[in-house]
């Protein structure tokens, strides 16, 4: 900072610098105190407490090491997946939880996973960036005798996993379509105008959701009038919804694929002062479930795709490593594939589901 503009007197500059410097220090002190997010109520409804009187499987058994890897995407759902897995693992005294960062893409996840394998965990729970790209890793680990639990994004090869537990994207679309179809029929609207705000269009899961929605609406003789794809974030949800609302000055129903981006969609609806339609959400966030229970917005229902599946995956991984089965089933081992049903949350059952909201 020794260099200064020869056209300006030095005295003036130093005084200004002093003032600016003082202001900067003050602002800095104030701002660093502002990064705290403490005070948010933590809810732990997405884990299953170990209660050995109700479930003999909860009794501590052989010590097991569970390796875990999940992409750290900037999204509430993915964040909830990691949190749930950690929280569930903590509840078991016989589980050692080893989480490895998944990096930025499938290639770096593969790299970190190979270091995990060298530590010889008893079982690996894995939410892959892409099921197809990490299929080879699944095969490799299984061949090395480490059972792999695939979380949500399926491996194409059946030999690549011991257990696959996932949500039902097509079923989500079907549930949303059925709720809207039934509501329209109940209201006696013969030709409803239906809008759709999808998530990231390049993802297979978005295509599956839209396909299910379309197919179910067709059984009622309805179709999607206009569809916009947002990017699973609130600001893109707001932007796309504001344009969809322009395109459809009259609308009867709308399905928004994701409750995180739904915060923005609801904001856009409020900003446009629209209330002429019903809206269905997706995934089942806590905010959405609360809004449905309060019944003070166009959001009347949401179809679930719960990140609680991560908690279940950890529980099942522990059973697999200990060689135990699921206590309600006759089989002595955990089954190979579990697909969660997509449930519809409405005002009537919102209180039951509120603990599953993320």
């Amino acid at each position, binding site marked *: 900072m020794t260099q200064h503009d020869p056209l300006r007197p030095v005295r003036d500059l130093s005084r200004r610098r002093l003032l600016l410097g003082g202001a900067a220090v003050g602002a800095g002190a104030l701002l660093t105190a502002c990064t*705290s997010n403490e005070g948010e109520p933590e809810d732990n409804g997405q884990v299953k407490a170990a209660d050995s009187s109700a479930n003999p499987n909860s009794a501590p058994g052989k010590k097991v090491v569970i390796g875990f890897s999940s992409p750290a995407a900037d999204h509430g759902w993915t964040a909830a997946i990691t949190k749930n897995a950690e929280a569930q693992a903590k509840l078991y005294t016989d589980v050692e939880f080893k989480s490895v960062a998944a990096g930025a893409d499938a290639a770096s996840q593969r790299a970190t996973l190979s270091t995990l394998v060298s530590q010889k965990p008893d079982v690996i729970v894995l939410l892959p960036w892409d099921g197809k790209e990490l299929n080879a890793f699944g095969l490799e680990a299984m061949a090395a005798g480490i059972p792999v639990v695939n979380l949500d994004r399926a491996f194409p090869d059946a030999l690549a996993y011991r257990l696959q537990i996932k949500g039902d994207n097509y079923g989500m679309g079907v549930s949303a379509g059925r709720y809207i179809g039934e509501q329209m029929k109940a209201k006696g609207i013969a030709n409803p105008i239906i809008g759709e705000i999808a998530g990231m269009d390049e993802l297979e899961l978005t295509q599956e959701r839209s396909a299910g929605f379309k197919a179910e609406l067709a059984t009622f003789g309805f179709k999607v009038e206009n569809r916009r794809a947002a990017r699973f974030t609130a600001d893109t949800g707001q932007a796309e919804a*504001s344009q969809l609302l322009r395109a459809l000055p009259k609308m009867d129903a709308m399905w928004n694929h994701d409750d995180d981006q739904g915060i923005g969609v609801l904001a856009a609806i409020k900003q446009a002062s629209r209330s002429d339609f019903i809206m269905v959400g997706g995934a089942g966030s806590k905010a959405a479930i609360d809004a449905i229970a309060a019944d003070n917005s166009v959001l009347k229902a949401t179809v679930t795709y719960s990140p609680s599946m991560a908690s279940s995956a950890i529980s099942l991984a522990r059973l697999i490593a200990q060689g135990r089965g699921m206590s309600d089933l006759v089989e002595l081992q955990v089954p190979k594939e579990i697909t969660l049903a997509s449930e519809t949350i409405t005002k009537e059952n919102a209180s039951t589901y509120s603990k599953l909201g993320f």
Partner: protein
Amino acid sequence: MSERTETAVPAGTAPSEGLPAQSSPVSPAPAGAGHGDPGVGKTSGPGGLWSGDAAESIRRNLGLVGVLVALIVIGVITRPDLYGNMNWVGDNIMSILTLASVVGVVTVGMTFVIIGGGIDLSVGAIVAIAGVWSTTVATQKFGAAGMIFTAVVVATCVGLINGLLISYGRLVPFIATLAMLVAARGLAAEISDKQTQVSGNETINSIASNRILGIPLLVYILAAVVAAGWVLLNRTTFGRRTVAVGGNPEAARLAGINVKRHTLLLYALSGLCCGIAAVMLTAQANSAQAAMANLYELDAIAAAIIGGTLLSGGRGTIIGSLLGVIIFATITNLFAINGLSTEAQNMVKGGIIVAAVLVQQFRFKSVTQLFARNRLTSKS
């Protein structure tokens, strides 16, 4: 010499357009010593070059208005049912301007940086870090004023860091701001714990829903930032120095401009714009998260480029950038009302960027040849 007069003629053929506009770059002369290209300063006597230069940007802006009109005509033809309703048309214009408002504010800052010979790839990330920082539970306790203060100060500070790295750390702008893009999004993810932070502050949220005289508040903010940017660029020494630094940093330094400090201020200005945009976007989405304002850097750069700002610096207009942003918003709106896919929309956007740059090259061919000749003739 005969060749030279020949090429100068087309630039001076439109005196009615050129003369009034000529006053804008020339009249605030205090920093005149640091005119962009030394070649320009030496030949400013005949007046042909500057007037041609100004007429060029006016012609370009008229061209952009033409594109805008064409887009609206396509809208009227494809959706006569919607455009038949005057209430809808009014609302739609407001909707397009609102859609353009956040990127528009970012683009004003970006235009300054690019004219000054730099590039800021971190604007989207700065919006995200400012938005996230201002919506933490702790910040929200300070109310709307505290949130706005936090967003603006955080964003300006990040811009200052960019500027320090580039001007005093001698990093290439592309690298420094690319690093900031990654780092700021990382910090935003860390602070927000990767969650979407809902803004519970009704005053902030009402920034996006309030209307004054039927016009959304966000559009007023955009108008204010654009007006301030125009005055700063065209009517102050700061603006003239920006053009000089971008046009030829060495000449600017020899002319007595503190190029390093000026570059620092340009990135801080870009950060300030991002801070304002962060408040606007947070208000619109009622929330902030680390992934917000994704790829805004590309939107802002593209808008500035089709608005006639030279990527190599030294030239550009705020009005052109604004028109660029509005054109992109109108395309989004056009595709939405026709129910067309986002993929097709992105392809058209890409096509428009390429077309704009091609036009820019054709237009500038004659002018740059002229510059080259001027340098030769003034040496001899």
